[in-house]
């Protein structure tokens, strides 16, 4: 196994981690500020991807498609926040789980009703297609590099937003003490809608970006949702920094274990069972990682509240 391959796989892990971060950031923000477990976050990812595919199909422009994804997901987020979610802030987690589970059903079948059962087409823009050669002779798809950059940019943007702006002060205040936001003279319900829409927009963006190299289809949000939950639980619910570290950990674990474990097992056993057992364990690896983290630190790596 060459160094080049290892570096390439690290890049792959990084890329999937960075995209996971977009999902997880919104999820953890919503939990941190409003204390809400949102199972329907994956549906917003799907909404973003479908909106992007629809607009790209009509206009042929990837930039417009991305904007459509942001707008559609933010809008969908704002609408469900106003209609449903805001009634759940004072409920226990149980009600939140059930209500957002119900939202998944509505979103998934609703999307199928509108767009039909067949997967939609969304392609990488021409300017970003094909591989580039990196220093060291690594050939790597340009679009995936762009995803890494885009994800990191969003991460920096989010950091600036939270640390350096008025909205950020309000968000941080909301995480620590709800009464304090009221004392600051902030319209809480507006702030909540805004935060929810922001989280939704991030999910929608991830859906559109990833949709270009994957399959845009109904139900695409759920696997990502579960991964994103694993991420924020590992990082500590409510912590953006935790979400970032957690996302990279999950992305790298998922990618690298899947590749290297079967190879490792081949040293000890026959090729066929090694491949099979290796990939079986690899598919469980991130859940094992999460359990280990929680057993070690019951509130995640950077979690404040229990």
């Amino acid at each position, binding site marked *: 196994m060459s160094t080049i391959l290892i570096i390439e796989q690290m890049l792959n892990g990084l890329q*999937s981690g960075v995209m996971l971060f977009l999902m997880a950031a919104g999820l953890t923000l919503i939990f941190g500020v409003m204390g809400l477990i949102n199972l329907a976050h994956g549906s917003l990812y799907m909404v973003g991807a479908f909106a992007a595919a629809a607009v790209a199909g009509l206009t042929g422009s990837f930039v417009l498609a991305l904007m459509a994804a942001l707008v559609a997901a933010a809008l969908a987020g704002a609408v469900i926040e106003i209609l449903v979610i805001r009634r759940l802030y004072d409920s226990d987690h149980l009600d939140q789980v059930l209500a957002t589970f119900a939202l998944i059903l509505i979103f998934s079948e609703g999307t199928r009703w509108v767009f039909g*059962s067949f997967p939609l087409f969304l392609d990488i823009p021409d300017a970003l297609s094909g591989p580039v050669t990196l220093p060291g002779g690594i050939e790597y798809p340009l679009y995936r590099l762009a995803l890494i950059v885009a994800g990191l940019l969003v991460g920096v943007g989010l950091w600036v937003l939270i640390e350096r702006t008025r909205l950020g002060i309000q968000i941080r205040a909301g995480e620590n003490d709800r009464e304090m936001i009221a004392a600051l003279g902030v319209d809480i319900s507006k702030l909540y809608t805004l935060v929810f829409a922001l989280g939704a927009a991030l999910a929608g963006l991830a859906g559109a970006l990833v949709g270009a190299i994957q399959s845009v289809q109904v139900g695409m949000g759920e696997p990502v949702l579960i991964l994103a939950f694993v991420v924020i639980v590992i990082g500590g619910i409510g912590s953006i920094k935790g979400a970032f570290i957690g996302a990279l950990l999950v992305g790298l674990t998922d990618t690298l274990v899947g590749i290297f474990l079967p190879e490792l097992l081949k040293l000890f056993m026959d090729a066929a069972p090694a*491949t*099979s057992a290796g990939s079986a364990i690899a598919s469980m690896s991130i859940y094992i990682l999460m359990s280990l983290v929680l057993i070690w630190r019951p509130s995640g790596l950077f979690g404040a509240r229990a």
Partner: protein
Amino acid sequence: MKKLMLATAAAALATSGALADVKVGMITTLSGGGASLGIDTRDGFMLAIEAAGRDDVEVVIEDDQRKPDIAVQLADKMIQSEKVDVLTGIVWSNLAMAVVPAATAQGLFYLSTNAAPAQLAGKGCNANYFAVSYQNDNLHEGAGAYAANEGFKNTFILAPNYPAGHDSLTGFKRYYGGELAGEVYTKLGQTDYAAEIAQIRASGADSVFFFLPGGMGISFLKQYADSGVDLPVVGPAFSFDQGILQAVGEAALGVKNSSTWSKDLDNAANATFVADFQQKYDRLPSIYAAQGYDTANLLLSAIDKADVNDDAAFAEALKAADFASVRGAFSFAANNHPIQNVYVREVIKEGDIYTNKIVGTALENHANAYVDDCKM
């Protein structure tokens, strides 16, 4: 009790050769992920039933949501309450394994429009069970034969880590015979194949075989095309289905795939089928629609010959396969699985639509590897 659709045609009763009214239960996937396959199956099947224009066949259609336990419930319902004579329609192997053995044990006929797992072809075969589609391994075997014919020496193969995935790679290797640059099992439902593609790039392979049905295949093909890895790719028809191709787009162009059917197959039955299907549903048919259509025609041919209540006679009538298949020459092997050609298709673009055209034949009059295991 509900009936999603009740198909009785308007033709006169007495004139047809029917010996008894036949009730058919169709269990297929109409909602949730994978609904497009079930919808095509249903539409193809009903196209043939309606075209036959007869009122001695009643079809009850139910949605299994792609959940095995729901499929079993529906089968129970159709057997107990609807009292159907024939079951059909299941798309997925795991659902078929849940339903078929119990149904045939209760004396029903099961005609498979798609799923045909090895267990039901070998030791688990049954006189009342007919796979009208193929045996699951067939397309993979076809791909293996194609790879061998093309002179591939060092191919990289991958499939999801579940039984159909294992069967797939086994089927491919059965006819391929060359070296393997790599053999990888991916996670079921995986959407990102960057890691596997990097492995392919590093492996020194001269070609790639993959079996990744549904959305998995879309993701793989898009990512593969963008990766700059330029090796020839071959796979079974499942990832190049009419419904899926539009979502893959350009990335699929030129890719070879093995199939038992294609819309440009040159025979009269197929021409009628493709034209009628397009006219009625305003889209191109898929292999699932073709298999549904053939299943219905096989059933109709048997109904004309024998009483469905006479198990032995009806089984014999089915086994005769006395119908015009859209796949051309078609007959049943001893274990009630088809003997048919496996073709090689290439993805092309016709106008704005991505579709397949036949470029060769991988295996002629091909049966399956389990005939000898079947003691009926």
